[in-house]
């Protein structure tokens, strides 16, 4: 289970201010904090307040200072291809691109980029028509991404399909479809692609957000989820993941399993 720390995102006030004032402190604080909280990747997103033409420079700066603070790879997150490529250029280690959809024109940009920079890539099971309602339609879009990755030589272990979870308070019927999608994605290729999801989406606008996130994460792990972009600053979430890894026979049990999960 690879946790991708969601916190370095210009949508958060402290990060936004850090970007505007060129102050690395909040970014480096969250890089370190998320490292301590078992993140395997740092999601890096400039946020919507940065103008499109400034995004590449801001992304480059964010990736550099985040990797100075914590030895973690980054999940370079933007809707702007130039910003993503700017992040990949300065990135140390194996990065992850966040993300392409199943639209051909987007796949034609991002998948060759993943191949060029030897980066992993997140593929969203959606296209310009939006997020499909059914598992079957999600899986069909996932297959488009699988085929395109294969054509460009991006191995399945580097492709993370996101079945797209929507908030429980507005799109309740999507939960079971997402779980079914996770199961079916594992049948699309051998070896199968990996899976991920934006976990906090599941609880957007809800009460008891951490409980909803944690519960859905564990349900998803049981259905084949390999990674998640999540709020990792949450001890209960980490404990639940540690227990899930034991119950899924992914980690070998020992009495100190909560502690060993946290040790790097």
């Amino acid at each position: 289970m690879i946790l991708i720390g969601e916190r370095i995102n210009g949508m958060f006030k402290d990060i936004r201010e850090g970007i505007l004032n060129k102050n690395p402190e909040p970014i480096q604080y969250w890089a370190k904090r998320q490292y301590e909280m078992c993140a395997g990747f740092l999601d890096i997103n400039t946020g919507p307040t940065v103008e499109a033409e400034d995004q590449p420079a801001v992304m480059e700066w964010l990736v550099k200072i985040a990797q100075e603070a914590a030895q973690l790879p980054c999940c370079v997150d933007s809707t702007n291809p130039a910003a993503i490529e700017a992040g990949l250029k300065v990135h140390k280690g194996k990065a992850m691109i966040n993300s392409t959809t199943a639209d051909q024109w987007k796949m034609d940009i991002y998948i060759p980029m993943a191949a060029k920079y030897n980066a992993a890539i997140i593929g969203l099971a959606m296209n310009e028509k939006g997020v499909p309602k059914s598992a079957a339609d999600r899986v069909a879009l996932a297959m488009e991404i699988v085929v395109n990755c294969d054509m460009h030589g991006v191995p399945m272990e580097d492709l993370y399909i996101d079945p797209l979870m929507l908030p429980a308070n507005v799109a309740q019927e999507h939960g079971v479809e997402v779980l079914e999608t996770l199961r079916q994605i594992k049948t699309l290729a051998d070896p199968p692609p990996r899976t991920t999801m934006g976990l906090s989406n599941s609880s957007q606008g809800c009460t008891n957000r951490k409980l909803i996130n944690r519960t859905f994460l564990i349900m998803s792990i049981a259905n084949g989820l390999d990674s998640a972009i999540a709020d990792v600053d949450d001890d209960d979430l980490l404990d639940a993941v540690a227990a899930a890894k034991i119950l899924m026979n992914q980690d070998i049990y020992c009495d100190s399993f909560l502690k060993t999960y946290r040790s790097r």
Partner: protein
Amino acid sequence: MAVTIAKEKWTSKVGEMELGTGAKAIKVGGETSLPFLHFEGEIPNRPVLALEVWDMEPTEWPDILKKPFDGVLADPVAWAKKNVEYGADLIAIRFMSAHPDFKDASPEECAATAKAVADAVDVPLVLIGCGIDEKDAAVMEKVGEALNGKQCLIGCATEKNYKTITAAAMVNGHSVIASSPLDINLAKQLNILMTEMNLPTNRIAIDPLVGALGYGIEYAYSIMERARMGALMGDKMLAMPVICFVGQEAWKAKEAKSPDEETPEWGALDKRAILWEVVTTTSFALAGGSIFILRHPETIKHVNTHFAKVMESNAY
């Protein structure tokens, strides 16, 4: 269309342990693949073979096992030298005399024997107690001190006595054998407890308490396989070399003792008994065993022939 060969991509490696000092020092572990799959990773070190030396004459050993040590069984130093001649990579001294049922020898007496053997041979030493937890702790404290800096492998540490033995190893620069009864979860937990005392992970050897061929070999085999896969997938608390006490198990087997006239259909005893130790060893080597504690010198010859073959690169 070209066929893509599927190869397992492991992300982690087994810790590499160094034993002994000087020209005869050896390294074990360090693998980045399942045993002998040179095409999937590195197998930097050949498994190593130790022959046992007891600090008192073994009374219950069968004749076939006593014969190669004629005249030295009561003299640990001479016995150890003989083992080196026979090609042992290490010498395993078993302080049987410390057992309350035998001579109840003091830790100081054991330390004197250890020192004498260490002065007489230059191969690395494995120092093993008599199997009584409290006594072994007391013995290892003294023996460990007497051989300070020799980078020995001492044990066996159990959940009852690991604190004293780990401390003795840390102070004197030795590595520790961590024993747990055929239970991967307990093995992992014991490794955690020992590393929490700040013993580096590459100074622990896992002893899963193996059984011999025909006597539950498959239990230890599966535990070793599972531990190795865990280690290669990043479980640091199982990423240690495995030590197998094969001699003591193989020579307990009926097949290693039953005389020719009782079981003629089993073949000649002198060949059969040794093969029992050989096959138990090679089986565990294929499961990931790195250090083998043996009893018969012939076993060393057979097993080394096998190891030479499996250590040949099959990378492609």
